[in-house]
């Protein structure tokens, strides 16, 4: 699924300049624990999270997460946006809460990280 479709489905705000709309996203994950991101999130995934600190961006960089979307329309510190620019990670935000954001994407056909047989 292309990033542009995700942005439409979640009615996202784009937070930085690296949001290449053609970017292909293969998996989605909703996660508030960084160790879980590192353990289970696949490298071509979108990360939906309710956490809003710079560690989210660092973790995303380490785990090769393709794009990050903050849920529930939280205000995002400029430090986070700056770091995401450095790391070249597209940054989005949606007003939707976690459950609904995941649900909409799943319904639209975005796969979870445990699917396709590999765990």
């Amino acid at each position, binding site marked *: 699924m292309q990033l542009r479709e995700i942005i439409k489905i979640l009615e996202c705000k784009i937070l930085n300049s690296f949001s290449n709309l053609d970017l292909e996203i293969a998996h989605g994950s909703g996660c508030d*624990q960084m160790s879980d991101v590192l353990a289970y999130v696949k490298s071509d995934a979108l990360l939906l999270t309710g956490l809003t*600190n710079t560690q989210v961006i660092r973790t995303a960089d*380490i785990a090769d997460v393709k794009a990050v979307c903050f849920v529930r329309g939280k205000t995002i510190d400029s430090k986070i946006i700056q770091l995401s620019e450095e790391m070249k990670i597209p940054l989005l935000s949606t007003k939707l809460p976690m459950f609904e954001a995941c649900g909409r994407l799943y319904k639209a056909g975005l796969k979870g990280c445990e699917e396709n047989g*590999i765990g």
Partner: protein
Amino acid sequence: MLAMAQKEELTKQQELIYEMRIGLVMTKNPVSVAPEMQMSKLREILQTKRISGMPVLENGFLVGMVSLEDFIECLTSDAMNDSVAKHMSTDVITLFENDFLVTAVREFERTGFGRFPVLNRETGELVGILTKGDILRGVAKKLEVEFHRAEKKRYKNKMHILDHVQADETRFTFQYHIVGNDFNRAGEAAGNLKKNLKRLGLPPEIIRRVAIASYEAEMNLVIYTSGGYMTVRISPEMITVNVFDNGPGIPDVNQAMQEGYSTAENRIRDLGFGAGMGLPNIKKCSDEMLLRSKIGKGTNLRFSVKLYGKNDDN
């Protein structure tokens, strides 16, 4: 990182004025006048060359300096037909072309003058003129050259390293300092390591495993310890990461290794850590792992990822 680079540059500038010689940055073949020239002729030179003073030469030797102020004085006292020799200043402070810049900097400070004539120390002939602007421009240029040279060297090193990894010849080490409790920098070491491994052209899956495991280890140091070191050794067969900290140590290493075990406080959990999954994650990402700890002394975690081996866990 940035502050560090700026600091380095500053000390580098200071070093350069002790290393660079005046001859390198001065303006060569400066505009000069003869002592018998009429003061009125200075007007055109001062205007067209946009300078505020110049050396007075006789047979190539410096006999004085004449300035805009001297010219203006003649203008107001109706002495424009006088010779330059009559109005130039003759007690001139000179510099030598093979003096270091630091000498010039001191003279500028001491005298408050705007320019100094520069002589060849052996022949005594005038070879140039030096202004503060010349020094600044010269140092800036040199810094740029050195910067490019350093970049080139870095690039060369990179190729060198890459060549050797592929040639199965050598091993080398990266080392990172990890600061305890500094959440602004937490993750920087693992991030840098990842970048370096990418530069080496290692397989992405290997890089990802090493990066994740080192990040977990780094976070544990930031969260639970007063800091320490991470050294990464890369050999043709494997990448071995060694993490040392200065304590407090882990009371029960086996317990710490269990999934879900965590002593993280709420403020750490609020940051998204403390699932008790870090150490199990490291085990999962590595081919070998060893955790040793001594209460009050510190903890040593070592893990390795084989470069060509198989890891079935992901």
